[in-house]
């Protein structure tokens, strides 16, 4: 899609909608930290006398890109890397490799790195990022076999 297809107000609307979804997914702390960085200009590329906030379109792209990076902590690759590293560094007194981690939460012991990994969401957000950056609008197309 053409990035000029929307005006600043429309890009801001999309950014607000995306932020609301991220918060509703339980990532309010991440959103709060990101919100403080959203309007900061890129100090490395912007001259000091031109430190103006990025456009809503740029903010949306930055927000999406960093949310994808955030989700990578729970990707299949990251899980496997943790499992391998843990097993190689930490052993039990019997010489067995440490298996993983558990989290005590609300009276429950939950095994870490179980449940669906985030790869599918990362891939979806990648298509969204491509689209708003001027690429094809595959993000809006249904995948084969998908129920709508």
């Amino acid at each position, binding site marked *: 899609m053409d990035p000029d297809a929307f005006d600043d107000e429309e890009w801001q609307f999309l950014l607000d*909608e995306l932020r609301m979804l991220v918060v*509703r997914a339980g990532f309010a702390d991440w959103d709060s930290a990101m919100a*403080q960085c959203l309007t900061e200009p890129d100090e490395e590329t912007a001259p000091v006398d031109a430190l103006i906030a990025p456009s809503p379109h740029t903010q949306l792209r930055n927000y999406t890109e960093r949310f994808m990076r955030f989700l990578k902590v729970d990707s299949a690759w990251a899980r496997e890397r943790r499992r391998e590293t843990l097993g190689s560094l930490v052993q039990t007194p019997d010489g067995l490799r440490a298996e993983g981690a*558990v989290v005590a939460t609300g009276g429950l012991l939950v095994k870490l790195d179980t449940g669906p990994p985030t790869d599918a969401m990362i891939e979806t957000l990648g298509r969204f990022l491509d689209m708003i950056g001027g690429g094809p609008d595959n993000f809006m197309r249904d995948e084969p076999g998908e129920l709508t």
Partner: protein
Amino acid sequence: MRSPTRRLTPAAIAVRLAQEFSRHLGVGRHTASSLVRSARMQDKAYELSAMLSLIGSIKHVQPRLVFRLNGGTNIAFKTGGGPIVRGATSHIEIFDGALIVGEIWTDVECLAISAGPGAKSLRGNLYGKCHELDVVVVRPGTRDRPLPKEILIGAEAKNRPFNKQLLKQLLGVRREMMMRAPRGTRCSPWFVWWDRMLPANPASGLVAYCSSPLIDRYKDPADYWGIRMEHVPF
């Protein structure tokens, strides 16, 4: 005849985003508590990654050290901090030959330097007399809430964009771990691998792991307090 092209609208894209968040992350399908719990798991996954980075750095400095998990085959994390309760959760013992030289615990409330000498025996909520560290290496045999002098190194893990607010939190924790010693004090070269001398008394280290490169912007104030900033991305 050409078929009319459908113009994408912000509203249509927003609907599609909502569908994808529902499909992949459960937004609108799962309960609020299960979504929050799932989000916390991501924080803990990053804490585990940070802990492995810490162990890797220590092991790199002194390869003969052995890290042994005591109390099961899984490392235990908590969603809220608490004191060290030996036997209740697993921890990692660090061996140099037959000698234990340190212990790694997770999500531990540590006593603040301002808490005073009697605080070790206090129970319940200490209201600011302690601060939580995501990962802490303490002297062998440490019990309850570690005193500043019982801490060898602490670690904080942040899987989020680093900003001024996080720096303030970090500096607050650091200033409750030690008094600033401008001349520097000698730290353990195994556990504080980046510098022999830190401006800290007691001589403990603090390392902040962050998935965002923005952490590098804050190195100067961190250096002043002997905090190591590590960018650990995915």
